[in-house]
């Protein structure tokens, strides 16, 4: 296991999702979810699977959109049916990563969610987050797809600051 800061994991997970061709909003949310998931000791396999099948991330993001929309018009708990344990684990982490208060109660086939959309989450964050080597490698490989190869032209015309500065 490798030890990283919260910010490092979150930024890497966003880039990894982006590198997996996930649209920006869903990639941002995935980054927050993945960090919460790892910090809470969640299993890594579902994260890895989701990054391997980017449609899964978009689907999960959509499930969360529906939960939020439903919660905004009803004070009743929202029920989310989810048979797959991996996806269920990610959904719980996704809800826990929202900026608002989220209470979840999961059974083997369903999550019951109560959201308070305008009340901030009180969840704490640890000083370090641990990540396994395989998932870290996968994320770094995907993240590398988002970087534009360096070139003399981009160094000279696309970036700030002069190359040498001897004022």
């Amino acid at each position: 296991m490798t030890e990283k800061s919260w910010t490092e994991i979150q930024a890497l997970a966003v880039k990894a999702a982006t590198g997996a061709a996930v649209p920006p909003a869903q990639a941002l949310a995935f980054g927050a979810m993945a960090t919460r998931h790892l910090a809470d000791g969640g299993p890594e396999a579902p994260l890895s699977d989701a990054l391997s099948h980017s449609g899964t991330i978009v689907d999960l993001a959509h499930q969360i959109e529906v939960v939020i929309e439903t919660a905004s018009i009803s004070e009743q708990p929202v029920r989310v049916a989810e048979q797959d344990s991996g996806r269920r684990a990610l959904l719980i982490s996704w809800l826990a990563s929202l900026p608002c208060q989220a209470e979840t109660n999961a059974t083997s086939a369903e999550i019951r969610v109560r959201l308070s959309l305008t009340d901030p989450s009180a969840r704490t964050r640890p000083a370090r987050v641990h990540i396994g080597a395989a998932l870290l490698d996968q994320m770094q490989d995907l993240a590398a797809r988002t970087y534009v190869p360096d070139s003399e032209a981009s160094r000279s015309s696309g970036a700030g600051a002069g190359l040498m500065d001897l004022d």
Partner: protein
Amino acid sequence: MKDHAPQTLPLRPPGEVMRLERMGAMMPTRLSFLRALIRRLCTERAAIKRTHWDMSPDGHGRAVYSVELGGHTYSLVAISNDLPADQRSDRVIATAWDAAFVLYDGTPGIADIDRIAAQAPLQEAGRFSPKDLVLSRANKSVRMWDATVAALRSGGQPDAAMIRDIGYLMRTTAVYGNGKFGIADRHLIETRDGLGGPFAAEMLAVYLIRHFTLDLVAHVGRAPLDPVLARHFGVGNATGLGMAPFLVTHPVLLNNWMLARETAIARVRALDGLSAKQRALIAALGARATRHLTEWHVPAADHDTILRDLETEWAGFLPHLETLNGQSPIETLWQAAQSQSIPLQELLVALLIEAFPDEVDGLTECMGDPFGPLTTPFAGTDALRAAIEADWSWALAQDYEDPAMCRRFWYVSEAKLEPRLGDRFADDGAELETPLDIARRVAALHANLPAQDQSVSSFLTDHPEHAHACARIAVLARYPYAEIRDNLIAATCRPIDMLRCKLSFFGATKFDPKSDLWTRITLAQGAPLGDELSPEADDWWLPVLG
């Protein structure tokens, strides 16, 4: 903060404030983060202690400075190196610097200092711990450094005019916080008394770096600096594109910064009458601004012309500051400024904020974003469309098919992950564009909205690519100053305006743009020295020498 609710006039509308032309004219205020941090140090009468000094006669070695703030001890570990001139570069892609720094949480032992001495000079290639709060590096201004050392060694003092022109002995080229390279995440310190404000830890590091540079030059020069001259040495900074995307990727934070500033000026404008002391203070600040402008020259002709025009215009406006009578004197002054240029208006904003600490200083407590966006979804696509047409007309008014309206694209280079800006029609990499094209995305969403109302989630089932725009629209509906109301991919977009906005919130002065992509600035120029931290020392807005 005062325990009464201050009167306020309506805030300037976001459509007026959140334009790049105005953001690119912003000036530092007493709400700026460095100013607020030093004010706090002054309130606590903090004392900076040099707890370790192992430095060669040429100024290469290690030093540690400690300071108490809000019941915690923080220490700057400074590593000064012998850097060959041909390696001195301000670019992110540089690999060596004159000095490297870590702001450490507590008092470091020898093992900690050894660890930091091994890692800090590596910067992005190093590895850091949660005890390390900030990582930074700096290069000397070789001209200023050599002249100061020579003057001190010959029994004299450096030339005041040269200090005015350059303003620093070293300039930082990066100040990293919030979890980068393993340093502490911001959430670990954000509830601490004294470090709660945005970038407070980074600003503490900058202030201690300034203290170190003054100590180091006196050590190498073998004589002390005159305190008047020393006070006018700040810390330089070279800032490029990397800072610009932050304003787009942190919309709630941007809102809270701008909202605090706009609330401050709205409160000041609402004041009914002024005491003789307040009138005198405003007149004195006006005169100080005049001198500051006179001392502020930059090599770039176009930017210097802006400064000289402002200097002339300000001289013509000054009589308004000397006739502040009647029922609503500030509002009368404000209205007189509305026919003046944007740079003059923004200078006046900063001056008026400076003059009224009781109405303003408490707002620094509202400038963070501890939660993230707390938004509520739209009832349906009709409500989403209504929000777009109400808040985003500026985004809908542009033709993004026009090459001039989409010429630029933001991207991250594989070279040290440096943010860069490309030409969509000439450069490689547009397919890897960073999603800062918010206006274009909102316009595309608007064009795709269905004629028949439906839930937003069902719309996004078929159009997941629009979720980003939906999120931004929801944020803007709740946080009115969250969005820069300009097309950030237009050929005419000047990132330097975004840098100016952010750096003014840091407290930067003497903006010295080198292109549309980067600028030099000075931080902490005029700030009290390490042995001068007392409440009465909080008076260094727009510093002048002598």
